[in-house]
């Protein structure tokens, strides 16, 4: 392969990874939430709050890392609201989650108004001497920003936690049968609170990635539906962490690939190409649903059902 081809492949992979990272982060957080039996449809709202939180934190302190922390806190704050409503007050999870998205979009627009049009300091790329210069994968694996590294670490960490630790087993037990888990003395509500907060933190970080790495500026509604894609990815991955990685990168590849097809002048209508990533998601979801046994094994059995102890 010529040098030019290598450079092109490397650049394309890097762009795909930038597109995939926010999806990956939000989806891995939601996976933990759903594994505990809670369905939080408010990912989009928490994500966009993370975006404005990250941006404000960065503008105020001038430091994108502090911005990312503020973004995480904003996402957690919104998820705490969800947790209080659905876990303590046992409201309907679907309705509450939808309301959370609407709230997040509106609230972020309101507090973000003075920040529209300002430029942010982009989160710097952390190079690792020697490794970054490797061909093709060098910059992809070792020449990215901190949030990318965190996203990969989270996939591995969550997989390890869920399937290799007692706490992970308890969390999955709660997701399948909270009554039995409760009878065994596992703290159902407390565990679910922690899971929901973790989901909020991940969605917040995903949002911060949007306003600090993806496009270092704040725009109303800048999550642009990515929260919903992340929700679909969790089902797509049939609640398995490493499949989230595959799903997010596949989605990123299709959405970036369609732009490459356009730039090469292939002559397929751009409207159709723009719809491709969503079309791909739907098709994969349909295919996955075909195998009902596999779906049943992986789906948290009590997903979306409220649990009230002693009732």
């Amino acid at each position, binding site marked *: 392969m010529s040098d030019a081809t290598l450079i092109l492949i490397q650049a394309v992979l890097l762009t795909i990874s930038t597109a995939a990272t926010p999806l990956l982060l939000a989806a891995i957080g939601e996976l933990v939430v759903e594994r505990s039996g809670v369905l939080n449809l408010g990912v989009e709202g928490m994500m966009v709050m993370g975006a404005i939180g990250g941006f404000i934190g960065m503008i105020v302190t001038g430091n994108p890392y502090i911005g990312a922390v503020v973004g995480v806190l904003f996402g957690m704050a919104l998820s705490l609201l969800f947790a209080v409503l659905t876990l303590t007050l046992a409201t309907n999870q679907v309705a509450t989650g939808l309301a959370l998205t609407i709230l997040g979009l509106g609230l972020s627009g309101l507090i973000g108004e003075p920040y*529209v049009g300002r430029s942010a300091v982009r989160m710097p790329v952390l190079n690792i001497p020697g490794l970054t210069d490797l061909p093709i994968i060098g910059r992809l694996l070792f020449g990215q920003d901190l949030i990318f590294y965190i996203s990969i670490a989270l996939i591995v960490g969550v997989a390890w936690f869920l399937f290799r630790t007692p706490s992970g087993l308890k969390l999955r037990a709660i997701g399948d049968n909270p009554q039995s888990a409760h009878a065994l003395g596992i703290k159902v509500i407390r565990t679910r609170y922690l899971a929901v907060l973790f989901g909020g933190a991940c969605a917040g970080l995903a949002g911060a990635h949007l306003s600090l790495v993806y496009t270092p500026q704040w*725009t109303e509604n800048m999550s642009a539906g990515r929260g919903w894609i992340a929700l679909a990815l969790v089902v797509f991955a049939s609640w398995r962490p490493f499949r989230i990685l595959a799903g997010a990168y596949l989605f990123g590849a299709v959405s970036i690939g369609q732009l490459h097809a356009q730039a090469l002048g292939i002559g397929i209508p751009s409207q159709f190409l723009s719809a491709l990533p969503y079309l791909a998601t739907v098709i994969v979801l349909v295919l996955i649903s075909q195998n009902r046994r596999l779906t049943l094994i992986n789906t948290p059995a009590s997903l979306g059902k409220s649990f009230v102890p002693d009732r």
Partner: protein
Amino acid sequence: MKTLLTTLATATALSLTLVPAAQAQQDTAEACFVYVGSHTDGGWSQAHDIARLEMEEHFGGAVTSRFIENVAEASSEGAIERMARSGCDIIFTTSFGFMDPTVAVAERFPDVKFEHATGYKTAPNLSVYNSRFYEGRYIQGVIAASISETGTAGYIGSFPIPEVVQGINAFMLGAQSINPDFAVRVVWANSWYDPGAEADAARVLMDQGVDIITQHTDSTAPMQEAAARGIKAFGQASDMIEAGPETQLTAIVDTWAPYYIERVQAVLDGTWETSDTWDGLVDGILTMAPYTNMPEDVAALATETEEAIKAGELIIFEGPINRQDGTVWLAEGEQADDGTLLGLNFYVEGVDDQLPQ
């Protein structure tokens, strides 16, 4: 129910037959603006908002103004109608996709004056105004071909409408005047204002090796991305130099204030009439941001081109120009008329892209 219907029908018939009363002079007026993006987007909508403020200042306290921002084109009719209902004397709707909604609302509010930017449908109370952005695009093409090392520019389009196609064609004609083999790669963001999609498009184009980015979308995201990779870019609608101090070559800067002042003055005087304005560089409705980040001889060439366009010595759409497929569009010396340009739906020769229809 039947009576109500009859009454309604009579009322409608009456309002249709009534001749609009002669316009009276008025001491104060309220001007309203509908933006497709944020008023601080750093591009298109901000240019309109700067003009709005200048207009307000010009009239002292006599004219007040309001705006509504981030109005989606598809659902803009309600927003425009709310403006019309809330006492605006004149409403400027500033995006191409607001055209049909503006026409519909203008019909229902015959006493309110409407001004639609970049469209082509007029009515007794609806004017259109536009700027010959393509003149600036030609200059950008000249600059791009002069400094590009790869001989390929990336072009981020919003929607494949005539205004954008004019821009791509003019850019290429300008580039071809320097380098006949210059190439352009086009990506459609399918939005006027979507920083995420615009940034993706810019990244993809740069991945493919273009070394100039030009955009016909409204946010500063492409400029930011170009700056991040040390590639040069052109600003759109507003001077975007802040987003890329070492990146921006020049920008097409929209200067709507004189037009807004003139039209609002007409409302005050009671002399407002439907008009169809399509001005260019020479009228000052668009200006070029300073030619920066390029060698002096290129800047001089750009200035020279700008002067030639202003003086009418350089007509951009003047033959010989071939269509993309090589057939003759304009013969030697033949000029495209405005009607043709406003319906332009094909590329000129040398654009290696298929226009989405």
